[in-house]
């Protein structure tokens, strides 16, 4: 693996004045955080502003450039930063910059349908352990094959949306017109090919825009194209080795993996750029009269494979909940920092204004279990005690099966939290998934155990209907 610089390599290249402008106590603290990749170099403003540090700046920028460079699409708060990957495996550190999902809008829709599609993309959201999952950008496709229509659509899109844009066409005249129309929005240009590199490369250079190098199915060609575009002066590159689904999926996964492995393990800086995948290509196989669900199914599988295998941007067509929930969840899971603790602290939690009549629930200390339960209780707005039991960070179901959640454990936790002194009843609501130990728990604790819902989404209703107090 490419060696990531340590604090002692970074420190000598900082100003060394301990000015605290970056918000850290001193330059060494900043160097340490740089090495952990938790701060950005730009926070050290003197380095950029004071000409006497110019030499240091060049050296340090080179030192801290990640093996996969960062590319920014769009401007303002919705701009998408992609790439900047440091490791091949998330367990080696963590993945940075979650894969950006760009949904397509064809340039030939009438203005009403166009606006509706844009809104559908911008509005897609789902609440997942306390955060709103969202899509990231819009891929404007030059279906019209008419430069004027494309430019007009680009202008229109930039007018109604702040989201980052990819201008998609393999015709140089289309990209020239689109780029000219919205260059100030910093769109990503898709794409330069072995046939069009000269014209498209020139457009990217002229407007200083990021550009996709597209050479499907042949990594020699992609390396050549990248090499050529760099020589032309295109700095912000994104690579597309081609996306094939179904029987071509093995080849596609293989190409993406080789590119990322080359950049990170073999330190091949020519290929150290973000990768673009286009699961939308499955729609070329969609046949008249066929259920669109089959094509969407395929799009999800292709996208999921390439979220796991190193794509930094995905271009998708399907905007359904059932297609994008698994994809946004998968992205969220894989881009979670692996050092994030698996467990939360065991003990007693309270929600709302608890009193002696409040119900007593229990769950496990597996972070995802706990946060899901917590989020459900908060959303339902119910008032309750919640005992968090140390199951060595296992979910309820797994902990019961693995005997990390036992009647004795539950009885001990009741004791340790001193809940008996806080409520005037002796009723404990058990997770539905722990139903099988409820009898033993009654014996071990002398509390009455009521089996609550199997899924914590049912807690609100269960408590509000007073079922836990029923005889």
């Amino acid at each position, binding site marked *: 693996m490419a060696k990531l610089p340590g604090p002692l390599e970074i420190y000598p290249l900082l100003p060394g004045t301990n000015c605290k402008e970056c918000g850290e106590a001193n330059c060494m603290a900043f160097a340490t955080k740089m090495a952990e990749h938790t701060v950005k170099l730009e926070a050290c403003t003197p380095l950029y502003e004071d000409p006497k540090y110019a030499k240091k700046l060049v050296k340090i920028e080179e030192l801290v450039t990640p093996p996969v460079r960062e590319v920014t699409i769009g401007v303002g708060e919705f701009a998408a930063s992609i790439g900047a990957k440091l490791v091949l495996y998330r367990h080696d550190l963590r993945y940075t910059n979650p894969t950006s999902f760009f949904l397509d809008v064809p340039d030939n829709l009438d203005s009403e349908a166009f606006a509706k599609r844009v809104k559908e993309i911008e509005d897609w959201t789902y609440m997942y352990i306390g955060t709103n999952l969202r899509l990231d950008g819009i891929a404007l496709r030059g279906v019209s094959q008419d430069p004027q229509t494309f430019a007009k659509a680009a202008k229109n899109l930039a007018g109604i949306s702040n989201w980052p844009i990819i201008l998609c*066409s393999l015709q140089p005249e289309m990209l020239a017109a689109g780029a000219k129309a919205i260059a100030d929005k910093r769109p990503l240009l898709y794409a330069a*090919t072995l046939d069009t590199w000269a014209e498209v490369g020139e457009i990217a250079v002229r407007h200083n825009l990021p550009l996709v190098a597209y050479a499907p199915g042949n*990594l020699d060609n992609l390396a050549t194209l990248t090499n050529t575009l760099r020589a032309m002066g295109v700095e912000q590159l994104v690579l597309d080795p081609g996306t094939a689904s179904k029987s071509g999926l093995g080849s596609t996964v293989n190409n993406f993996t080789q590119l990322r492995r080359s950049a990170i393990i073999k330190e091949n800086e020519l290929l150290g750029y973000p990768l673009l995948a286009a699961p939308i290509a499955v729609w070329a196989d969609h046949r008249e009269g066929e259920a669109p669900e089959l094509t969407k199914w395929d799009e999800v599988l292709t996208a999921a494979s390439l979220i796991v295998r190193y794509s930094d941007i995905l271009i998708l067509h399907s905007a359904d909940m059932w297609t994008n929930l698994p994809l946004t969840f998968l992205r969220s899971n894989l881009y979670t920092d692996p050092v994030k603790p698996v467990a939360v602290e065991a003990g007693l939690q309270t929600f709302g204004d608890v009193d002696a009549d409040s119900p007593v629930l229990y769950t496990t200390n597996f972070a995802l279990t706990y946060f899901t339960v917590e989020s459900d209780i908060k959303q339902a707005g119910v008032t309750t005690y919640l005992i968090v039991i140390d199951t060595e960070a296992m979910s309820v179901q797994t902990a019961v099966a693995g005997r990390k959640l036992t009647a004795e454990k539950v009885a001990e936790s009741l004791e340790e939290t001193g809940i008996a002194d806080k409520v005037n009843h002796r009723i404990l609501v058990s997770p539905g998934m722990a139903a099988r130990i409820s009898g033993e728990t009654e014996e071990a604790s002398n509390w009455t155990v009521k089996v609550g819902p199997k899924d914590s989404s049912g807690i609100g209703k269960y408590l509000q209907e007073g079922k836990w107090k029923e005889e």
Partner: protein
Amino acid sequence: MTSDKEKSGITSLDDMFGDFAELVLENVTIELDELKLSLRPAVQQMARSVTQAALALPKSLISSSFTKPLGEYTQAIQEITLGATKGQGGTRGNTVTIGGHTAPAWDLFQAPPKNPPIIAADVFDMPISLAKVVKTHYKEVMDDPAEWAKLVVDKFGADVVTLHLISTDRQLGDTSPNDAAKTIEEVLQAVKVPILIGSAGDPVKDGPVLAKAAEVCEGERTLLCSATMDIYEPVAEAAKKHDQVVLSWTSIDINQQKELNRRLFEWLKPEQIVIDPTTAALGYGLEYAFTIMQRMRLGGLLGDEELRFPISSGTTNAWAAREAWLKNPALGPRELRGPIWESVTALALLLAGGDLFMMMHPAAIKTVHDLVDWMKEVRKVDDYPDWTSLSIPEGV
């Protein structure tokens, strides 16, 4: 897999969703006529550049070549065979072999998978509560494990069957090891594929039940699921005595997995161990399972004797995610959401290095078989369609 199994009569995804699509369309009252979709045939503009040899490039391109980023691995993953044919002392029609890999999962540029991953369909020895969209495929066979096994093999294309003896649980019926033996016999009679045996997760019963299963399956080379940190001695001992394979099951902890394997080495040979670090559902801890499986596969390849085993995944756990089964029209039809959840959970773990997937929904089983087939080798792609100008019917 070591044999070509007859797979005729397997329900295709098309069949399953053909029905479903009608259902959905009915619900939203769209007439099929309205769906006569106009789709321009895909224009394959890029084919030319694909076939263009690097040498033939125009002069002004600055040629560069690509070097395969090969890795160095010192040890192969253990190869494990499950099931035994008549000639091998068992009664199975075929055997299956997993593991044996010499490269990280699906790094085809390095080496293709030695043995493609396989699917075990779950069969239970008593009716159990299941998500509705799963249950609908099993309601006819819930009371009959033998019929259940036939269904998953003949119709759903399962490579092997896992018979879960959950009725032996003291809370669920407390059936005896002898009762369990009878059920095993019935299932062995009903199907020709290798069968795997799962216990109930009852600390008192698991040992005797799996010991009995090992005895009944003498010669069949079954997989005993599972040995855990709490109960491994009776399982390992029975496996040694009757020459069976053991699933070494731990809870998302790589050190615990190594520890349990070390203990099992006292009884078992390397060709008798499959490992399972626990599968958590997509959205509910999948990343832990993903990363541990990936680390185990890499660890094995890089010489760790305690991790060089094929990996099993209890993929049915995907259904623990509420998003897989909640009846909520805003989330889209659960008839699709559920099986895609199980499929994507499996897909992530396929890419991490899983070898054996224990699954339930027929569409997910079919999908994972497809994925394995699509990914197991580099096939030449003739066309990369120009999706930028593709006309996709509006509203889909």
